[in-house]
């Protein structure tokens, strides 16, 4: 025991709990998390609602533009239910959202859910493909950097990752486009238009550049965590003891170090997935990729209120789910 400064020596140390009680404690914890999660999601819905429907200024005017007549405004207000009391507005809105009825687009008149379904599919494809590449690559890069710590390889890796981390996605994307799409080599299409009705993987060429940017950003973030936690583990007392026991380097690396080094990286991976969702807005817009990110930019430009609400709720919910997942994984880790 280290110097007993913070331990209150009177407190009874937690006795080693049998598996079952630990499992129920864990289930209870996750249930509480889920409940907190619902409350948080509700908060988000209130924020979105408040931001979109009760902002100072007339929403209808924003939608119709400054040249709208008073009649048009009144008509739209009625269509949107804006003449109802606030609470019932929220209630109707929430009920519709929960039943998947997000209303119709003000621009095209089609149901939002229909318009978005293909977009969601495209975005999800891009994100999943990116994650599939990011996870093993981060592990590999992080491990290599840790093993060659302070050597040339590690230093140059750190330099590159410092620059990539600091560079905004749109700058990286523009550079990649300039390099491979337009200025230097013209090997790839500079925009990633996927025709409606086609699955993204039918156009592999179009996917290369947006994926490359997402993977580059993701790998630099995640591999640094892998590197640091691997270095920490390699300097731990138990790895030192394993060396003193005369174990082979392979056993030390794969049995002693790796499981402990991976543990902290797993929650980080889900946090990264969450940030990838937020980052997709910029990347999809840059490459004109037909996902929900670019749909959001278009919807804002077209004052398409139901679309904006739907997309933001969707993104916030997805972002939140991954965050929550990270939390649970982190707790699982700690309790182990």
């Amino acid at each position, binding site marked *: *025991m280290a*110097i*007993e*400064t913070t*331990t*209150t*020596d*009177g*407190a*009874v*140390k937690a006795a*080693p709990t049998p598996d079952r009680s630990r499992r129920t404690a864990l289930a209870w914890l996750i249930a509480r998390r889920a409940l907190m999660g619902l409350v948080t999601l509700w908060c988000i819905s209130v924020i979105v609602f408040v931001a979109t429907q009760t902002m100072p200024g007339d929403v209808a005017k924003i939608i119709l533009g400054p040249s709208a007549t008073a009649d048009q405004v009144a008509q739209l207000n009625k269509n949107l239910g804006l003449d109802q009391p606030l609470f019932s507005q929220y209630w109707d809105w929430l009920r519709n959202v929960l039943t998947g009825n997000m209303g119709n687009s003000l621009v095209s008149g089609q149901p939002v859910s229909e318009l978005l379904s293909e977009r969601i599919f495209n975005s999800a494809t891009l994100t999943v493909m990116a994650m599939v590449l990011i996870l093993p690559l981060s592990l590999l890069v992080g491990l290599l950097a840790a093993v060659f710590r302070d050597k040339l390889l590690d230093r140059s890796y750190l330099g590159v990752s410092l620059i990539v981390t600091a560079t905004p996605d749109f700058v990286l994307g523009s550079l990649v486009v300039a390099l491979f799409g337009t200025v230097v080599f013209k090997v790839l299409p500079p925009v990633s238009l996927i025709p409606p009705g086609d699955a993204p993987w039918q156009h592999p060429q179009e996917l290369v550049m947006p994926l490359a940017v997402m993977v580059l950003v993701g790998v630099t973030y995640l591999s640094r965590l892998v590197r640091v936690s691997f270095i920490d583990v390699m*300097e*731990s*007392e*138990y790895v*030192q*003891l*394993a*060396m*003193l*026991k*005369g*174990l*082979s380097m392979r*056993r030390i690396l794969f*049995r*002693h170090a790796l*499981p*402990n080094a991976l*543990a902290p990286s797993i929650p980080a991976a889900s946090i990264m997935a969450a940030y990838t969702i937020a980052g997709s807005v910029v990347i999809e817009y840059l490459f004109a990729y037909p996902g929900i990110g670019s749909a959001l930019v278009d919807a804002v430009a077209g004052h398409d209120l139901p679309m904006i609400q739907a997309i933001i709720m969707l993104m916030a919910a997805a972002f939140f789910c991954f965050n929550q997942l990270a939390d649970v994984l982190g707790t699982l880790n700690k309790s*182990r």
Partner: protein
Amino acid sequence: MKAVEVTGLTVALDDGSVIVDDVSFSLESGQVMGLVGESGSGKSTVGLALLGFAKKGANIVGGKVVVGDVDLLSLAPNDLREARKKLIGFVPQDPATALNPAMRIGTQLTEGLIGDKKENLPRIREVLETVGLPSDDAFLRRHPQELSGGQQQRVAIAMAVAKKPKLIVFDEPTTGLDVSTQARVLEMVAQLCADNGMAAVFVSHDLAVVGTVGDLVTVMYAGKILETGTHEEVLQSAAHPYSIALLDSVPSTRQRLALVAIPGRAPAPGTKFDGCVFADRCGFVEDRCREAPPPMVATSAGGEARCIRVDHVRKNRTGQVKEPLRLVEGREEKTSVLSVRNLNASYGRSQVLYDISFDVAPGECVGVVGESGSGKTTMSRCLIGLHEDQTGGFEMNGEPLPPRLRDRSKAIKQQMQYVFQNPYGSLNPRETIATAVMVPLRHFYGDRGKAARTKAQEALERVEIPWRLADRYPAELSGGQRQRVAIARALACNPSLLICDEVTSGLDVSVQASVVELLRSLQDDGLSMIFITHNLAVVRSIGDRVVVLSQGRVVESGAVESVLNGPQHPYTRGLLADTLDVDRPDSETSDLTG
């Protein structure tokens, strides 16, 4: 043939500074050598170097380590690994961090052995039983964090012993354990080495531990061996001035001794010396000591010491046989400075203190003794008002004292001062030590500027911190100096009661001695004190009365002499029996087992 032969072992840091300098010794099979030294002496580095290992940033630059007939340091990496696997066991200081949290005990126990898991299981079970652990499959399936500290340490020992090594290195294996667990573990270590014919090197900062477990004792200081010999030779008739000084600074449970601190400050690892490494702090120093590094010289007792004045030192040493201090009698007064009545405290639903009652008379030092988990820290937090979940009554100088800090008046806060255990945390790292002492002066007395500086200077000089250090930051001071500043800060408030919470447990013995002597001198000035500690010996040397806490209850209290000479409660008796003492030439009972 010797089982272990170490010659000229030298370890240096990457920048070239030598942290272990020319260490040589040899061991027979079954022999245990205690390697003792204060922090920074290089003893743990030697322990690791015996396995051909150096921490990151350090390298073994010379010497030979021969175990059996293998010279470890000349082996290629793969052969060295094999040699570690077969020849040498290592028991780490802190098994809580040295056992892999993600692997089962069983796997960790079998993985280092030659042959597959099945073959080795019977051997593992046998060893687990020898070290007093269960050996069933359920136990082997556990993870380290499901065991107590003592169990973890036994697992670590079993792990090292299972391969039947020729040499086993213990790196302070009992540092984190309670005295009773420590006593059991030490007994077991001695038994194991004798039974299996293993040579062992037992690294420790604790002279009593080393004296209990070691056949040989080797004293290290500043990377060098200063004295070596059998444990009688070194502990009973030490020859090197450093060993003598170290022994003088160790408190005893059996008699109230004045502790003698070693002047000066231990050199940082890697410091270069032209002559003797101890010359700057030695009471016997001569000019020629500083000219060339002294060689090891045979002493008249039979050991060897690195001192050119061995004979002179032996003839003229002082303090080896110490006169016990007399207790100051007649402190019977009517009003207590503090009286505690039926104090109960809990954390949430679990109660940790039950009906604690005691009094502190003016000018008296009450020692509160307890092992970890006894509730002593909670008790001290209750006294100072930091623990809110408490019931019971306090009186200070006859006036009722509110239990909560926020209900206490400024005068009470000034009367009652607290010194914390950890010298590294008790001072604000961003304030100079002068400021640290002036903050309470300004708070309680409104002193500013010159008046405050004068008072601060007085307080610092009272604790023997020279005023030229006033503008230093805590990081620039040693642990002992920081603890003195913390005491000076408390003194600046002009308190009537000082609560010292384990103030010496983070310090080396020689530094502990100086802090204890400082506190004793404050007591002579009339200050009342509550001294909380786990260490009976320190209580013996400073306490007037003692309160023994066990599992949140006072099991025994009374005058120090009567409680420690004739303990009534079985817990106190057990505690006393398990507390190791350095065998001294003057102790009447030197047959304490361990």
